């Protein structure tokens, strides 16, 4: 059946949905095929998290004392959240690259679903984030980290991490649509991500930070995420006695943070995509 012969009437909703899904998968496969040509792209989600786990586990574990179970038990929750935050960079650079090259015009002149471009990036980058999560979990287990809670809590912990990864990917897509060049993306992303993930309880308990910095760390959404993951995995949270509300209810506030960011970023991303691709 040629495209010429097929199109006499507008396709039904069911057909359009099926095409929307298959178009998104075609574009996700395209993004993953790029990895085969530029394997370095995978370093972010393979070697880098592994290196972080090993560095922190061996370099800091002697120096940082965490009450209630040792530094390695504490570390994993933080490093998981940090690595998934870096997930912003992947979709941001690949979308900015696609926009600077003419390929988006090609896609837009084809009878494919409009949303497939963003969904394709979301699918392929979610696959990359899940690979990073698996590698970090495995490397954590190798250095002695364990899940001390039960299976439902462990599943909830991974589900929360997946939701967080999903949220960061939307943020990355928005950044990619806002950026003028792919190079600008990396710079902006690192300027934001480093302070965000370090002025938090990611690697050291926030209680030890000087006043001012400590308040920032305690209200940082990254801290809530890390505390929630630690709680769900039964790892030490090392919370100070007078921790603020978000840290005392970490799972709830982590969910709320993700929901809030998605509620703002998803519509902005879709609108920005329409603007960027409107002639």
């Amino acid at each position, binding site marked *: *059946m*040629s*495209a*010429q012969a*097929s*199109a006499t009437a*507008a396709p039904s909703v069911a057909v359009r949905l099926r*095409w929307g899904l*298959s*178009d998104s998968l*075609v574009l996700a496969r*395209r993004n993953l*095929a*790029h990895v085969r*040509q*530029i394997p370095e792209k995978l370093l972010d989600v393979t070697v880098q998290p592994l290196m972080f786990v090993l560095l922190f586990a061996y370099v800091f574990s002697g120096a940082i004392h965490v009450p209630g179970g040792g530094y390695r038990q504490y570390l994993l929750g933080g490093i998981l959240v940090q690595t998934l935050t870096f997930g912003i960079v992947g979709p941001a650079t690949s979308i900015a690259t696609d926009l600077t*090259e*003419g*390929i988006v*015009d*090609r*896609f*837009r*002149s*084809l*009878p*494919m679903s409009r949303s*497939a471009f963003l969904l394709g990036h979301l699918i392929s980058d979610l696959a990359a984030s899940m690979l990073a999560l698996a590698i970090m979990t495995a490397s954590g287990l190798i250095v002695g980290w364990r899940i001390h809670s039960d299976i439902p809590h462990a599943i909830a912990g991974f589900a929360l991490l997946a939701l967080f990864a999903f949220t960061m990917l939307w943020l990355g897509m928005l950044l990619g649509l806002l950026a003028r060049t792919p190079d600008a993306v990396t710079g902006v992303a690192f300027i934001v991500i480093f302070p965000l993930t370090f002025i938090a309880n990611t690697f050291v308990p926030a209680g030890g930070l000087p006043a001012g910095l400590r308040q920032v760390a305690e209200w940082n959404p990254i801290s809530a995420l890390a505390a929630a993951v630690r709680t769900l995995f039964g790892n030490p949270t090392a919370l100070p006695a007078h921790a603020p509300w978000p840290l005392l209810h970490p799972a709830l506030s982590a969910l709320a943070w993700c929901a809030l960011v998605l509620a703002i970023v998803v519509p902005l991303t879709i609108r920005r995509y329409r603007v960027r691709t*409107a*002639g």
Partner: protein
Amino acid sequence: MASVAQAHDPTRPAQGGVLAEGLGKRYGELWALRDVDLYIPSGSVLGLLGHNGAGKTTAIRILTTLAAPSAGRASVAGLDVVRDAARVRERIGLAGQYATVDGLLTARVNLEMVGSLYHLPRARARARADELLELLGLADAAERLVRTFSGGMRRRLDLAASLVGEPPVLFLDEPTTGLDPQGRNDLWALLRRLVDDGTTLVLTTQYLEEADRLADTITVLDRGRIVANGPPAELKARVGGERIEITLTSSEGLDGAADALQAFADGQAIVDAEQPLVTVPVRAGTRLVEVVHALDTAGVDAVDVHRREATLDDVFLTLTGTQPPPAPEPQEVSAT
């Protein structure tokens, strides 16, 4: 100047063709395209001729649903480009001014991907990719990454991508830019074949010769507006086909040279005192030997005499009486 010379029956939609009425596109205060009427019957070829910034690319982008018109309306294959954009895309192929293929995929994977996005079954998409790689002489490079391709190969692959869906209406934006003469001739032959098989073709070009070779109708755009429209023969009759250019040692001989050339002229001589240079459109069959003899008799001190085909600049000089605008930014139009 009046836009469309060709009459058409407004009650019958252009089934496989293209129709535009009062089409305009404004960027801020600038109209990149204004009051453009087009009628391209199914199976015919329209050449959009103009300099950079004349509005050619803008017109193509509106007709291929990539840009929304600010004024007027257009239909492709009987479907409105705004209201029925999705279905228009099923019936068109586009090869833009810059190759829009994925450098990190092989040529074959690029074409298969495009086939999948036309919702061809996988086996059909693969077969179509093979056919097109063969047709465009890329079969040997099928498994190579596109980023290793030369500019000409990229353009050919881009054209192949535009043909995957067997579109009844094909849009090509400056398709021969970056091709060597051989590649250009091959492309022209291929386009001829597609048109003979019933494809409606809209192409833009900066070369009068190319429009003349391929198009049934030439529309000349200048700063977003149509300045001439008609069959190539008619345009050439107005503009004159050939030019003779005389370069002199000094500007003093210019008038004498222009007078001496009157005997061969088919239009107004144009004198450029800066160069110094005289350009005259001449009748077909004018012999260069006779021209040189006439100049010699008149005592004109010419350092160079040569004959050439009319160019787009000549078209502008003849039609608008002004030099074409200096090339502004692509897709935009100078404010003057």
